[in-house]
């Protein structure tokens, strides 16, 4: 049995916020001859937390996201608790 639970947080830049990195990568891929219409680059944060019930883990990680992991001005987050 694992002694920690893995939680994956996907941090996604809001569509309204420009993404210079995604735009640059899209251009580079097209320069290399690939047919790509859009690229977005986001962050995935994987946390090891003490095991517990899903609700309390979700509550704790939500707090981490709101406080630190995501910037509400430009990002949304989604939490996946790995089974």
């Amino acid at each position, binding site marked *: 049995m694992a002694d920690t639970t893995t939680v994956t947080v996907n941090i996604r830049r809001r569509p309204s*916020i*420009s993404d*210079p990195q995604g735009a640059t990568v899209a251009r580079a891929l097209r320069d290399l001859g690939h047919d790509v219409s859009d690229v977005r680059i986001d962050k995935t944060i994987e946390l090891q937390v003490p095991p517990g019930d899903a609700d309390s883990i979700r509550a704790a990680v939500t707090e981490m996201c709101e406080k*630190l992991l995501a*910037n509400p*001005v430009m990002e949304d987050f989604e939490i996946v608790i790995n089974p």
Partner: protein
Amino acid sequence: MKTAVVVFPGSNCEHDVVYALETLGGSADLVWHRDTDLSGYDSVVLPGGFAHGDYLRTGAIARFSPVMAEVNRLAASGAPVLGICNGFQILCEAGLLPGVLLQNRDLKFICKPIHLRVESTNSILTRAAQVGDVLEIPLNSYEGNFTAAPSELASLESAGRVPLRYSDASGNIDATNNPNGSTNNIAAVSNGNVAGIMPHPERAIELILGSADGRILLESFLESKVSSHV
């Protein structure tokens, strides 16, 4: 007036800011980010650098430093609070200024002198300057590309809270003289007694180093009095 220059782990412009403020007749001390008492100070500078390595997002971790409670208190009391470069990013993350600073449009670090046009004198950075002045100041950043939600941008612009924009040497403001993709060429943002600027005025206070145009910005800051802008 005595200024606290906050040192976060990873700050690196703190000594330069103290040197510049003192050269201009101010008085400044370095304070560590774990300090919890800034009662002896009547203004604050958050200097440039890479607080906490800029990991996660620039300024994201620094905003939780113990000293930030005092920075908030001083800001609320009307004391001048200035963020330069990384300090600007921290003030945005802390919610003292609106918006965020994204990676530069070309995804490259930029270190070079650029021109700024004074757009408003209603800020702790520009009160001694004149609208239309063009200043040559070094830019030195990877994440200097300012953006904000449309409603925030609209209110920044309509309230004249953009004291400085990127321009060319004659003061023209357009996409060709926007070094980093910043929305509306915004180089600095003001919120009452709080301001953030991406280029480094402390690097432009002596002609022997290339330009003395940063003096007027730091002199404005030093002349700003508590509560004068609230």
